[in-house]
């Protein structure tokens, strides 16, 4: 197992290198100029050129790449063109809101979707099954931002139960932190609940006709125990896979959700950096997201061994 993990970790190095090259090239090939944005609308050509020089953007692309790569390999992600702060500092500052949102969303999605999926499978063809399947179609079809605006309209504007926007750090109080996470997490979790519930239902349905389920029932075990201990445990591998995919999909989701709810997390940082063509920040955030994606996949693969002892690496 350890050798497998080490091999997989080693494999992330070429992946990250490819991502680094692609991100760097795509940004430089985009018809944009951070210096012109920084200088402001009233700046003349000389002012823009001066800023371009200061940022090192007047140098050939290969020189810029070598400088950036060299620094990145030493752990220096550079300084943001706009914020006059180290990118590492910016990312660390934005990590808490994004991690909070992601963890809260995943917990919410798993806690709702897995029981729903299991019950839908148990009551296949019944009204609960139809509701869960109908919700799944809806959850897949409606864009995240539409769900966000609908929830805001109902819970923040009409009922005035929850805030429209913003984030409060955990250190400033659990209540405020939780209060500001509910709507964004609900928004993000809708599609995940739809996805996980549907896969859970299908997986549980597949195992419900297996011999060991019949045996468990013949031994007199309760339906609840049969469902959880025997059916769900044996259906776990595809469910874990889809949860892993869901976590990875969250990376895209937080970009939209953080923008809609004005949460100062990594997603919002990404949007701001892209709009401002803040190359060092964009490069660093995309590298970080890519690394997260690779690591999530690795964790999912390792998790399989816990649910299915037949899987060996």
């Amino acid at each position: 197992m350890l050798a497998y993990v080490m091999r997989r970790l080693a494999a992330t190095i070429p992946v990250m290198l490819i991502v680094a090259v692609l991100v760097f090239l795509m940004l430089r090939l985009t018809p944009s100029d951070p210096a012109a944005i920084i200088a402001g609308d009233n700046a003349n050509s000389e002012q823009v050129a001066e800023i371009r020089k200061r940022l090192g953007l007047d140098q050939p692309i290969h020189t810029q790449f070598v400088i950036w790569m060299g620094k990145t390999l030493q752990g220096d992600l550079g300084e943001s063109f706009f914020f006059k702060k180290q990118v590492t500092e910016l990312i660390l500052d934005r990590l808490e809101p994004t991690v909070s949102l992601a963890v809260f969303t995943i917990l919410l999605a798993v806690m709702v979707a897995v029981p729903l999926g299991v019950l839908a499978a148990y009551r296949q063809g019944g009204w609960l099954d139809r509701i869960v399947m109908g919700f799944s179609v809806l959850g897949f079809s409606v864009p995240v931002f539409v769900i966000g605006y609908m929830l805001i309209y109902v819970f923040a504007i009409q009922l005035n139960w929850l805030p429209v926007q913003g984030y409060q750090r955990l250190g400033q109080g659990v209540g405020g932190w939780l209060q500001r996470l509910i709507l964004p997490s609900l928004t993000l979790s809708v599609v995940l609940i739809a996805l996980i519930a549907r896969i859970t239902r299908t997986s549980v349905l597949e195992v419900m006709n297996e011999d060991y389920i019949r045996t468990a029932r013949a031994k007199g075990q309760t339906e609840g125990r049969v469902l959880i201990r025997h059916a769900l445990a044996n259906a776990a591998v595809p469910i874990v896979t889809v949860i892993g995919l869901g976590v990875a999909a969250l990376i895209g989701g937080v970009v939209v959700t953080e923008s809609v709810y004005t949460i100062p997390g990594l997603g919002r940082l990404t949007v701001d950096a892209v709009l401002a063509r803040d190359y060092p920040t964009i490069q660093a955030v995309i590298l970080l997201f890519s690394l997260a994606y690779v690591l999530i996949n690795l964790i999912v693969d390792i998790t399989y061994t816990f649910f299915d002892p037949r899987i060996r690496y």
Partner: protein
Amino acid sequence: MGYSRRSMLAIAAAAVATIGLAAPAHAQKTLRAVMHSDLKILDPIWTTAYIVRNHGYMVYDTLFATDANGEIKPQMVDKHDVSADQLTHTFTLRDGLLWHDGAAVTAEDCVASIKRWAAKDSTGQKLMTFVDALEVKDAKTFVMRLKSPTGLVLLGLGKPSSNVPFMMPKRVADTDPNTQISDFTGSGPFVFKRDEWKPGDKTVYLKFDKYKPRPEPASGLAGGKAVKVDRVEWRAISDHSQAVNALLAGEIDFIEAPPHDLLPLGLGDANVAYVDWNPWGNQYTFRPNWLHKPFDNPKVRQALFYAFNQEDFLKAVVGDAKYYKLCSSYFPCGTPFSSEKGMDGLLKSNFQKAQELLKEAGYDGTPIVLMHSTDLAVLTNLAPVAKSLMEKAGFKVDMQSMDWQTLVARRSKKDPPSAGGWHAFLTSWVSADITNPIFMGFMNAGCDKAMFGWPCDADMEKLRDDFARETDPAKQKVIAEAAQTREAQVVTHIPLGQWYLGALTRKNVVDMVPAPAPVFWNMAIK
């Protein structure tokens, strides 16, 4: 598990109660504002971005300021003496001016600040061509000696918009003008809370208790800057509809520039008001590129003037006539040099005349590469209107859509339009930036030294120089009119009408001072 249903309910109830109790208490005197953009850069001399200018007005003070009538009034200056030959200007600072660190503001600080500003700002650069020496006389007095008289001394030092000559401590003003400052000590009415500044989240300012406002009432950017709130927070909400939702829910108090189409949503709430804080408004502008055919020919550029009419542009973008004004003047209506001289018969969509001019110019049907900005609501519909009117006049138009930042990058390219360059684009100016021939960047016809579009006209440059040399406002107006008349012949750009966009505020936010930039002194929360 050992939890009963009752204990679970109790835990849930406690959690809900905790959420309610932990909701942040709203300080009565905190004004929560959403500005047009997030504040990312903090040096108002280093960039011309308006959000940084607005930050500058919070933290820094100015020697002079433009009042509601467009007149320049003393601000930090107590006394301004001009010698009989108009070559020596002596400035004496007011008593009791302090930096946020408690040190006294000195003449030495002001001289260093003027020098740094003048190194970056185009008006400052022009002013310095007249300046022989800037000398500190004593702690509160400094002297500006000129080589020849100029009207730019007050116009420059009282410049209302980017770059504003903000005063900074000497140790800060000594920073290379091309390097951003890292010490944000000012002497303005608010103190910047650097430790609470979170780009992408919020910017915080506290009332500067030791600020000494002038005795006069606030007027435009001049007069007494009395601060009536304890704290101002600029919240970074990039989504306009979310900002309006937050205003309706009472989570914020002020939105600087909500899009026109969201105004009815906000104003549908009895607790929300519209405040026209910028009575001079903004001006739409068409900018041709003089470097490339066919706009290297003045007759082709004049044809544009005959093809366009302002109302089509304003209706398409702004819509509601309450928020726009037809104004056939290069210098915005309502500002001191506004005039319609030389503009007879123009901007009336006289397509026949435009076609005649194109024929005379020998226009060969070269497609005009018109850059179309798609992501800023206040600009998006301009280019399609221009295309339609130009085609009716006989132009062929290749409208290329892109986001504003791409347009900003591309407009600085001098390459031919077929090789990544451009023929024309449309933009908008804050009126305060274009109130005279020197401020108006697009009127600069200094060839390579001009802004993108690179107009080249010696007569126009002479008129601008004459304006800079003139000290009598009445004579300045005559020169400004002559420059406008020359504009109608050479066409460095075309004014396409004035438009207005005020703020949405909670009704308990009162007494905002109308000014060319959004300012927070005098504002109070009832």
